[in-house]
């Protein structure tokens, strides 16, 4: 069975490309107020692992419908010949630039494509549409009319009456605001115009639903990975001689802030790409750290040990060395060797630690004073980031691909709120484990992702 093909046709500037863009989730469709922007047919196959289940064709708008219909009238014999007359029109005018638009849009229809005729329901019906609809009727192909509500006015009742005379099925569809369910309903409506197309379309809808679920899982995972990284992120810098501590701390703090912003941006891009919004422009305030001063720390380190740990290690090493002497004299030293060794090891570690730290091996000092920022200790910070991320994911999922304006994320009242105490407790448990850097759990991110995915699902179900 060949996959159903649908040609989106109509007057110029009535939202054909917007509908194609929304249904195919393709933001590369040229959408312009200037008529004739679409000059050639463009095919949008819906394929699953290469198997095409249906295909949309965006076509140029009618430009000389009256003249074309006049030619057909003058060449048609009876009603039986009408489809052939249209075919002859296309054959005879395919190289005629005057009828380039008409030939382009009629070709796929004559090859068997279903007709999706698009009008703007926010503008009044006009007599200049009649020639177009008549030509489409002449093709004899199954058809469906879509009333696209571009503006605020509503002339859909008039349009319904007019379109009803030419098309068996008429649907109202807002290409800019249609959510996933409405898009799916429209696809299923395409199946109503020819029975044998229904199966392929239902199969396509099934795959689209699975794809939506996968996108949500992917978004949840990406958000969880960002949160885990943000919570555990640290920036360290070894201090060199002459470094001014405050300056270093400020530099480090700024770098830390940039890291957090970069992590959020990367998460945004991944989520957007997951929903085929790869070139989305965003208006959003940068994420703010809630406590600038609370998480900078200054420590002295050598081989990853603090000074106290180093002294303890030195003392133990000295004791071990001293114990060899004790053993060699069969304990007659009354463990003096171990005791003195411990003292000597500890004291020498204390006295020489700075000098050892300054020793450079292959250009790297072995240790020294270190300033570190992070990990994030503020308990509210993950919720702020999570709220922003869930709001962003929601807006991206809801946004159709016909939009060309920037995505405004700082919508008042749009932030995600976690009202369920039990869920908040589960989130807090995970955030707390990440903050403590528990080393025995490998599934923290996966668990967090599952929790986030539940939030996404619940919110959608509530809506």
């Amino acid at each position, binding site marked *: 069975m060949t996959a159903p093909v649908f040609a989106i046709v109509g007057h110029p500037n009535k939202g054909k490309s917007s509908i194609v863009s929304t249904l195919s989730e393709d933001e590369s469709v*040229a959408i312009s107020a200037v008529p004739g922007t679409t000059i050639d047919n*463009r095919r949008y196959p819906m394929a699953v692992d290469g198997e095409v289940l249906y295909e949309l064709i965006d076509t140029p708008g009618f430009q000389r419908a*009256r003249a074309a219909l006049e030619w057909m009238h003058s060449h048609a014999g009876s009603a039986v010949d009408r489809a052939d007359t249209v075919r002859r029109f296309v054959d005879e005018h395919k190289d005629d630039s005057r009828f380039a638009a008409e030939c382009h849009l009629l070709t796929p229809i004559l090859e068997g494509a279903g007709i999706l005729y698009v009008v*703007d329901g926010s*503008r009044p019906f006009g007599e200049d549409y*009649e020639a177009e609809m008549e030509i489409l009727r002449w093709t004899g192909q199954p058809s469906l009319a879509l009333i696209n509500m571009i503006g605020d006015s509503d002339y859909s009742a008039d349009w319904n009456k007019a379109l009803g005379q030419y098309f068996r099925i008429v649907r109202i569809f807002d290409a800019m605001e249609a959510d996933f369910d409405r898009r799916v309903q429209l696809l299923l409506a395409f199946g109503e115009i020819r029975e044998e197309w229904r199966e392929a379309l239902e199969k396509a809808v099934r795959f689209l639903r699975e794809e939506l679920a996968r996108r949500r899982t992917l978004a949840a995972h990406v958000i969880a990975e960002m949160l885990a990284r943000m919570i555990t992120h640290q920036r360290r810098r070894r201090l060199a001689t002459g470094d001014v501590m405050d300056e270093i701390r400020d530099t480090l703090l700024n770098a830390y802030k940039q890291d957090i912003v970069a992590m959020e941006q990367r998460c945004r891009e991944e989520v957007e790409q997951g929903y085929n919004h790869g070139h989305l422009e965003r208006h959003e305030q940068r994420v703010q750290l809630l406590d600038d001063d609370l998480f900078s720390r200054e420590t002295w380190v050598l081989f990853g040990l603090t000074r106290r740990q180093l002294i303890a290690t030195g003392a133990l090493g000295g004791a071990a060395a001293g114990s060899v002497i004790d053993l060699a004299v069969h304990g007659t030293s009354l463990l003096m060797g171990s005791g003195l060794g411990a003292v000597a090891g500890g004291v020498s570690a204390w006295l020489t630690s700075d000098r050892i730290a300054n020793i450079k091996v*292959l250009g790297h000092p072995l240790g020294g004073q270190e300033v570190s920022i992070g990990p994030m200790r503020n308990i509210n910070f993950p919720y702020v980031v999570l709220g922003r991320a869930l709001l962003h994911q929601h807006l991206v999922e809801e946004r159709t691909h016909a939009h060309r304006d920037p995505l405004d994320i700082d919508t008042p009242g749009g932030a995600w709120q976690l009202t369920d105490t039990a869920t908040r407790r589960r989130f807090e448990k995970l955030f707390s484990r990440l903050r403590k850097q528990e080393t*025995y759990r490998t599934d923290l991110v996966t668990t967090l992702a599952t929790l986030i995915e539940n939030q996404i699902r619940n919110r959608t179900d509530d809506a």
Partner: protein
Amino acid sequence: MTPSSLLADLIDLSEALDTDHGVDLENRKRRDRNIGRELQHWRNRPVSQIRAWLHELTPSSARKNGLQGVHLYHVLCVVLLAAGLLTGWGLASAVLFYDGKQPINIVNAVVVLVLPQILLLLVWLLAAIPGRLSLFRHLGSTLGFLNPGRLAGHLAGIFTAKENQCLAMLWHPDNGAVLAPAARWLFSFWSQLFAFSFNIGILTSAFFLVSFSDLAFVWSTTLTISNEIFHQLLTTLSAPWAVLVPDAVPSAELVAQSRYYRLDEGSLADTETTPQLAIALGQWWPFLITAVSCYGLLPRLLTLGISWYRFHHHLRKALCNLPGAPELLARMNSPLVSTLAEEPEHAFTIATDRATGKPDATHYAVRCPVIDWSGACDATDDMAAPLAALGIEALKFLRAGGRQTTEQDLELIASLCQGRPEGVCILAKAWEPPMLDLLDFVRGIRQQCGRKKPLIVLLRGGPEGVTAADRETWQLTLGQLGDPDLHVESVSHAT
């Protein structure tokens, strides 16, 4: 599948996934699904799938960081092995030092070579218990500085330029959520490697001394411990190997014979039989070696194996949990649903510099026919005021476009131009775009009525009036005719 090859893949995968982020997602989906379909037989083996993906995507020659990481890992293994061997050898040499004057106290030897190992083994067990109990977790981190594996790791980290692209990425704080368990078991593996080689060092040293010198073992204590109690203690200690190696269990006779008193420059309990005992006293060595083997070497071999296994296990888990890896697996194992266009758009770009300009004067002062294009005007009376505001006196109202035929349009143009009008005004719906049908009509008027006469396209809006966008569309489209006397006006603008 060895940990070292897993480790190399983990390091390279982390880098590859990071770099891959720059590739367009649609391309990634296609590529990864193709690879995933080839690896369909490994659908339930995510680690194998991910590794195969890595090998498919990046040739071995491009994977340097992983190799370097593994090289460092091996170097540290060798260093720790050598350090353990030397330490064990040195300690055993000191404990089993015998210059012929004072025999070796077997109690000392057991206390130094066996007892600490049992204690350290308990510490390891505490550290190995999953830190769900905070006491153990804190104990583990507090005693962490004692871990030679951890020290080796930090030492390696000092000389690493890009911490997140080499072995040190395992314990980098940013990767803690995914890699910390693997790092923990790597440190454990290294420390057990040290401990294992330490025991090998002890045993080698002991064998060496037993083989190439004569050692005399005794036991000595100030406490009032009878030979029987001491023998009972040793029998309990020897219980694990009593069946397998009965010769390594000290007999009651040997215990009784080798009790040693230091009084009078040292003397044995049974001075009558001293020459024979001198030979017998050397027979403590099987007990000592078996004790070190049983309480030191074998448990360390076991903990080394456990650490190796856990490290291996967590490396495998980490491979599938690295940032981007779950998404990669989803891309490989889910059907590729594509709805996008296969080819780029060939859109027409209109020249914006050719838009009809805004009229300089809004008062045209012309008497001309007004053509209603495609039913733009319901009632001609309504147009009187807007036309007057533009200085247009309507000579007559005509109809074109819409339900009129193109032939009727041509006849209208012919009759219109015969009257040599001062200009022509076309009324059009602002919300409908100017199509080529209308442009043909405008061209026809210009050709037959001549140039230099104002041709005014007057736009009539709907309930919203003529919007700026509508007006711009008309100006841009009619501008393509390049007619300086073609003007676009709107009713709202005119009034």
